[in-house]
């Protein structure tokens, strides 16, 4: 296993207040990782995105994050001031968000949004920024980078928006990249192309990657290890290539319920939640 000192997470919890007292959506999870590719899978609402947001200091109020230990490259993230977070976010940790339309500013051109991290974190001049932004738009597979550069978010298709998001994050070359469903709106060829690009950059720059995905096959093919979340807990940890052979009932269902032309006309198997939660 890679040197587990890049990111260290011990007993991380995220809570929200509610009418009936605080609700904990992440239950004291622990894991560590080095410059490796970690897949985070699990059911909708299990806390994957919340975990990602906690790692990058973006859990919005009234949410509360607590942890016994939360370090990146030895630096205590819990002790960062909002100003220090601003610097870390983007330059040290990058997050590609799940909903591209929500994450992109609707009134700012794509070109400006991709250049923004260079403005914040580097001394690159205008011409160089533009050149690097165009190169990045091309690298994420946009067919006409110059058109994308001058476009606004509403003029792009769903898959184009997702690739723009990725470009804005990769351009700053963070140490740890967290990608939350970065390819869910892409067709299969493009998905592999974008992942290949991401992995190439991760390998070249010795970065760590947390890939949040509901595509188990993708995680099995592209990641070193996998963590499986269910209802705020990590319920299964295994080498990514072993996902298909997991003995855990939840992970097993995730494989079994995949549709195919052969399942046409029949209901897909679904999770027996009652049994699972009874502690099977």
């Amino acid at each position: 296993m890679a040197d587990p000192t890049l990111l260290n997470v011990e007993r991380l919890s995220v809570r929200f207040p509610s009418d009936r007292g605080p609700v904990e959506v992440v239950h004291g999870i622990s894991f560590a990782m080095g410059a490796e590719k970690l897949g985070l899978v699990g059911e909708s609402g299990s806390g994957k995105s919340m975990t990602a947001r906690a790692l990058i200091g973006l859990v919005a109020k009234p949410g509360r994050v607590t942890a016994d230990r939360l370090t990146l490259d030895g630096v205590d993230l819990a002790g960062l001031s909002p100003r220090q977070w601003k610097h870390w976010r983007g330059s040290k940790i990058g997050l590609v968000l799940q909903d591209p339309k929500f994450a992109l500013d609707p009134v700012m051109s794509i070109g400006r949004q991709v250049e923004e991290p260079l403005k914040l974190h580097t001394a690159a001049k205008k011409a160089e920024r533009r050149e690097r932004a165009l190169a990045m738009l091309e690298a994420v597979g946009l067919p006409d980078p110059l058109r994308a550069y001058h476009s606004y978010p509403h003029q792009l298709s769903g898959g184009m928006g997702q690739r723009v998001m990725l470009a804005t994050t990769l351009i700053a070359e963070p140490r740890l990249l967290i990608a939350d469903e970065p390819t869910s709106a892409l067709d299969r060829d493009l998905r592999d192309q974008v992942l290949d690009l991401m992995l190439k950059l991760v390998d070249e720059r010795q970065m760590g990657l947390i890939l949040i995905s509901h595509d188990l096959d993708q995680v099995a093919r592209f990641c070193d290890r996998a963590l499986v979340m269910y209802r705020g807990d990590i319920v299964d940890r295994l080498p990514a290539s072993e996902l298909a052979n997991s003995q855990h009932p939840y992970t097993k269902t995730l494989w079994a319920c995949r549709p195919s032309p052969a399942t046409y006309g029949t209901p897909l198997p679904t999770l027996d939640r009652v049994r699972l939660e009874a502690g099977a």
Partner: protein
Amino acid sequence: MSLVDISDLNVTFRDQDVGRHILRGITVAIEEGETFGLLGPSGCGKSTLLRVIAGLNRDWHGSMSLLGEAVAPRRRFTGKLRRQVQMVFQDPYASLHPRHRIGRALREPLVVNGLDNPDKRVTEALAEVGFGPDVASRYPHQLSGGQRQRIAIARALLLRPKLLLLDEPTSALDMSVQAEILNLLVTLKARFGMSFVLVSHDPDVIGHMCDRAARMAEGRIAATFDRPALAAGAAAAR
């Protein structure tokens, strides 16, 4: 007569002062009771075609009839079409107002269309997609991505449409919730006699759900597949 009858449909967008011809002579008929799939590479025009059928993009040329009614370009849908054609969007954020609670987002179309017992219908619709009634008091940002998509599906189903347009309805969902939603869609389709147009980039989802499908490329329909072709894996072929 077909449920959806489209012939020689063209759409052009103005973009940086040049016209871009996005849909190029689409001709397609979708029959009542069918689940019709649309697949094709990113940017080929799938969402644009759905938005035309949904009456959201009204700037088109060609001819179209929906549910037996001829539809003219540049006209809003009225009366039964407005209720009976519903769409679930690719990006659930785009369809949920960020500052309206879920309950309000679901109740509004019911009230606008003058349906009785809105609160009961909302509670039932939420239960159909696996939520308890208390989710009604949340805002969209207080839900996970997959939970928002289930809300969007519940809302589209509330008006009991005849034609449901689904743009990547499960691409934001994990496999177990995807299975639950696909099962639910199949059950409700039979129960309420709906027809579906389903956009997905996942050939397995198309193969599982669809009676027929079309592959689009650069604004045209490049191929159509019947059930035997889909069963043989045609949707996955490159």
